[in-house]
């Protein structure tokens, strides 16, 4: 049932693929038939979303590029089995989360080290000087890094990508109750991280 709901809320099949004059369903159909130009159009259409989601989940541009590359390669391999009537976007989000999860597991020890650095050396600031927009962004990015992997995925998809709780649950393969709990914890943790950051500035 959740997958149907997901299809209703996240269907991009009626959207025109940028500059192609064709709907996503038409382009997807051609790509499934082996049209490389159509596949390239799909990559161009979704690359930013995939890359940015991976960037938020992994916290590094280089890792995000690796993840995005892997997501589109998996799409290319899986394409022949893809049902053109199904929306592509939920699948891409799910694959992005899975690929990032794989990378996260490989780098778990490095991440633990990075988490320790987050509140210390990686955030430099001038006490008494008003926090700049760039610093705010870095502060939030550092706060996201302190979350658990599941909290991070839930809050990135819900609050940054703007998906509904139901869609997030469908992508993560969890219940809506679980996702709500993860989102709640994540928001509180981020708020408290910001509090600590601001106290150090005073």
């Amino acid at each position, binding site marked *: 049932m959740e997958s149907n709901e997901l299809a209703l809320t996240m269907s991009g099949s009626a959207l025109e693929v940028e500059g192609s004059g064709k709907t996503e369903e038409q382009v997807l159909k051609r790509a499934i038939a082996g049209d490389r130009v159509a596949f390239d159009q799909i990559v161009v259409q979704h690359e930013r979303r995939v890359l940015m989601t991976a960037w938020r989940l992994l916290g590094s541009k280089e890792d995000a590029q690796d993840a995005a590359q892997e997501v589109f*390669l998996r799409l290319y391999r899986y394409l022949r089995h893809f049902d053109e009537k199904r929306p592509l976007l939920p699948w891409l989000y799910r694959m992005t989360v899975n690929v990032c999860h794989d990378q996260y597991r490989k780098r778990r020890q490095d991440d633990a080290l990075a988490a320790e650095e987050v509140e210390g050396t990686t955030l430099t600031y001038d006490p008494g000087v008003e926090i700049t927009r760039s610093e705010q962004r870095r502060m*939030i990015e550092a706060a996201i890094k302190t979350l658990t992997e599941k909290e991070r995925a839930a809050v990135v998809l819900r609050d*940054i990508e703007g998906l509904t709780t139901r869609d997030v649950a469908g992508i993560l393969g969890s219940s809506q109750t679980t996702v709500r709990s993860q989102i709640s*914890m994540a928001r509180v943790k981020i*708020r408290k991280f*910001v509090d600590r950051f601001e106290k150090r500035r005073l």
Partner: protein
Amino acid sequence: MSCLDFEKLIALDIEGDLPEPKSAKLGAHLRACGDCREFKGKLLVSQTLLKSLAQESVEEAVLAEVRERVLEGIVAEAKPARFLAWRFALAAALVTAAIVAAVTLWRPRAPSHVARASRPPSVERVAVGTTQRGQDARVTAGETPALGYPKIPTAKSKSELRQRKPSGSTLAARLKPPEELVVKLLTDDPNVVIYWVVD
């Protein structure tokens, strides 16, 4: 419920994720609790910052690099596939050639009963003449054709044999070696038996 519990509800309520009954309960608490109202205000600020990350742009060069790497990955995956296809084709050709060669060179094995008969030809002496006269020439020492060998034809007709009178009826004459010698030669082929009649 403590304020810590309400913090979690506030975190859901600010984005409309809190079901109505709990939302009403939270509203009642917020009216009475200044700390939680303050926390809600701060949470709204951090949420605004968090959501602002969605507006960030990414350099075109970064996206182009991803595109290029995807293309390289697809090409790299296609190469081994072609190589493997070539190897499979070669292996199939070799197997086919081996099968053809085996079929060409294969000789069907004789059935077991024939195989038993496939022994070196044996030669038997068949006594025909004074002592065995009048009897069928195939009555020979050790003659037991294994598997339905055809009846041994007489080397000479019985009438012909009868014409030959014994040279004498004495014991000495009877002890003389037979005048006629029939040699039966068994071959590999059970249908072929060679008789050699020697006078």
